[in-house]
């Protein structure tokens, strides 16, 4: 009899077919061909941008001239050359005018031309070395102790330059007997004497810094505002459920707290990271006018009938009709790792900043409570935090951008106010859950920054 029973069952269901959810193939395909994870790009791009910015800010040897050859009035000058006017200068020296004063065009089309220098018997002018570099001619490591007016014969432009600036007096840190000679910058010909005599002003002018200063700091940020929730349906049958949730939602707020450490790089840039926490509150005011409540009781007993034990199962169903009012609250708490970059700029002596970055979600805790009509948590639910299976334990990356204002309290303490926008890139709900749920945050915040 058993064989017959087995055959019947087998023939009935061996080739039976069952509907497969549409999402099954997508899930399999995702496992076979996982999406490329590009999160690492953020971690590479950020230091790359910083390095690029730093390299741009770092003046090279030619930039040194370029930085120094613009005066406050915007007039182009080249570094100073000191000479003693009491001595005759450049009486018999000649510099080939074609190379000494080349036009920009000529130099630009010359590959490493070597200027021709003719030394005369008069040793008052000592030109040690004249070189050209790349597309612009320059005289490096030249120690001009004097220049003769005779140079005007072959180089009238230089004579004009000399005569223009010869009478300008400067303070000389050596003996006070020297005069400062400034040159008008000649395109394609940069004089860059590596003299040990430097204008003291150079050392105090911040624009002459050759490296960026890095200063560490600590920042504590608190912000709050309104999150904007939006859903994406994976199954169209849940449209009503989505509508219900949107309609019954009563209140929603979110708060963030971040403790950050970072470094100021130069005067305008800063990078920072740390730990943060964000909490989102939601309250749902759910009223169902024609609710049905079904209670099913099942009782299973082993009883003895004529001394033989027998299992008996009884069930009863109670159906109740009426109005259901349910006030509930959801709380989402996230532990986060922000990585931010800030650019500071001034507008009419007011310090503003923009900042952006990524916030990596390390953990997400969710909790739901039933509330009494006066919005207190009922004693039905325990207050222990628990993870609902429909939510993820981590939501992935968020991106954020802020605009803020900085107020200097003291040299090392600053108060900042900022408005920020934050976009979650990952769902709060589990991948298999048919309704995906994400948040945007619009926050106002304040932070205290302390520089070490």
């Amino acid at each position, binding site marked *: 009899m058993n064989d017959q029973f087995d055959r019947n069952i087998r023939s009935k269901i061996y080739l039976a077919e069952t509907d497969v959810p549409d999402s*099954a193939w997508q899930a399999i395909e995702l496992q076979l061909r996982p999406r490329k994870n590009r999160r690492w790009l953020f971690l590479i791009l950020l230091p790359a941008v910083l390095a690029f910015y730093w390299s741009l800010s770092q003046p090279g040897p030619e930039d040194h001239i370029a930085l120094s050859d613009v005066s406050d009035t915007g007039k182009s000058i080249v570094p100073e050359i000191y000479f003693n006017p009491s001595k005759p200068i450049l009486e018999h020296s000649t510099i080939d005018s074609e190379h000494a004063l080349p036009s920009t065009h000529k130099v630009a089309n010359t590959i490493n031309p070597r200027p021709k220098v003719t030394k005369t018997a008069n040793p008052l002018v000592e030109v040690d070395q004249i070189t050209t570099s790349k597309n612009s001619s320059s005289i490096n490591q030249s120690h001009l102790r004097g220049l003769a007016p005779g140079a005007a014969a072959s180089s009238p432009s230089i004579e004009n330059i000399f005569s223009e600036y010869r009478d300008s007096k400067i303070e000389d840190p050596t003996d006070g007997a020297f005069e400062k000679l400034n040159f008008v910058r000649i395109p394609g010909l940069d004089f860059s004497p590596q003299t040990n005599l430097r204008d003291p002003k150079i050392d105090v002018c911040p624009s002459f810094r050759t490296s960026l200063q890095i200063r560490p700091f600590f920042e504590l940020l608190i912000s709050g505002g309104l999150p904007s929730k939006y859903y994406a349906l994976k199954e169209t049958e849940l449209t009503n459920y989505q509508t219900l949730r949107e309609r019954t939602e009563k209140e929603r707020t979110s708060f963030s707290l971040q403790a950050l450490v970072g470094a100021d790089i130069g005067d305008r840039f800063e990078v920072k990271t740390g730990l943060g926490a964000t909490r989102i509150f939601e309250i749902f005011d759910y009223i169902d006018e024609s609710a049905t409540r079904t209670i099913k009781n099942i009782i299973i007993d082993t*009883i003895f009938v004529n001394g033989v034990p027998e299992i008996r199962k*009884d069930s009863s169903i109670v159906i109740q009709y009426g109005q259901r009012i349910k006030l509930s609250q959801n709380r989402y708490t996230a532990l986060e790792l922000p990585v931010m970059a800030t650019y500071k700029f001034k507008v009419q002596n007011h310090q503003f900043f923009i900042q952006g970055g990524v916030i990596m979600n390390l953990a997400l805790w969710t909790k739901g409570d039933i509330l009494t009509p006066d919005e207190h948590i009922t004693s039905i639910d325990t207050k222990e935090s628990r993870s609902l299976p429909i939510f993820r334990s981590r939501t992935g990356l968020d991106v954020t951008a802020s605009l803020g204002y900085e107020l200097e309290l003291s040299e090392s303490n600053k108060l900042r106010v900022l408005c920020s926008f934050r976009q979650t890139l990952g769902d709060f709900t589990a991948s298999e859950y048919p309704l995906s749920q994400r948040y945007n945050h619009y926050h106002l915040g304040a932070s205290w920054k302390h520089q070490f």
Partner: protein
Amino acid sequence: MNEEALIEGCIRQEASCQKQLFMLYSRKMMTVCLRYARNKADAEDILQDGFVRLYQNIHQYKNEGSFEGWIRRIFVNASLKKYQTKKWTMEQTGIEHVAEEKVEAGIVDAMSEQEIIVLISKLPEGYRVVFNMYVIEGFSHREISELLGINEATSRTQLLKARKQLQQKICELTMHHERPI
């Protein structure tokens, strides 16, 4: 596209062939998964896991025996792995005193496929696995004992109990059985 071309395409990891194979066998394999799984969500998990294993190991198919039988074996293995089957044999269900019910041959024929699958899925896990493997898949008790890590006698006992319980459930369903205490 015939079956051989489909297999060749899957070996080359062509997405179109993989999808076509899925469309061809997913409904049948879903039934297999439902019979072994505790619930529908688990069955879907097993289905996904089984197909991923299938695509990863399809090059091992030697064209010996039916391809569907080979696929079915993959899904049975995926089901067994899902629940770590050795634990099932330790189950205590308390149905030692269930009286044997006599099931008329016509009753099973009168039932739908889904009704029978639902009844099988309601069996305790240890019974369900042995019943599925022996009655539906056609494994011998020796094979079952090796796969589940139990001895043959246990497999036979589990099958006997599963069969009895299933027969009882069929009787209850067909007779709308509701006994007053």
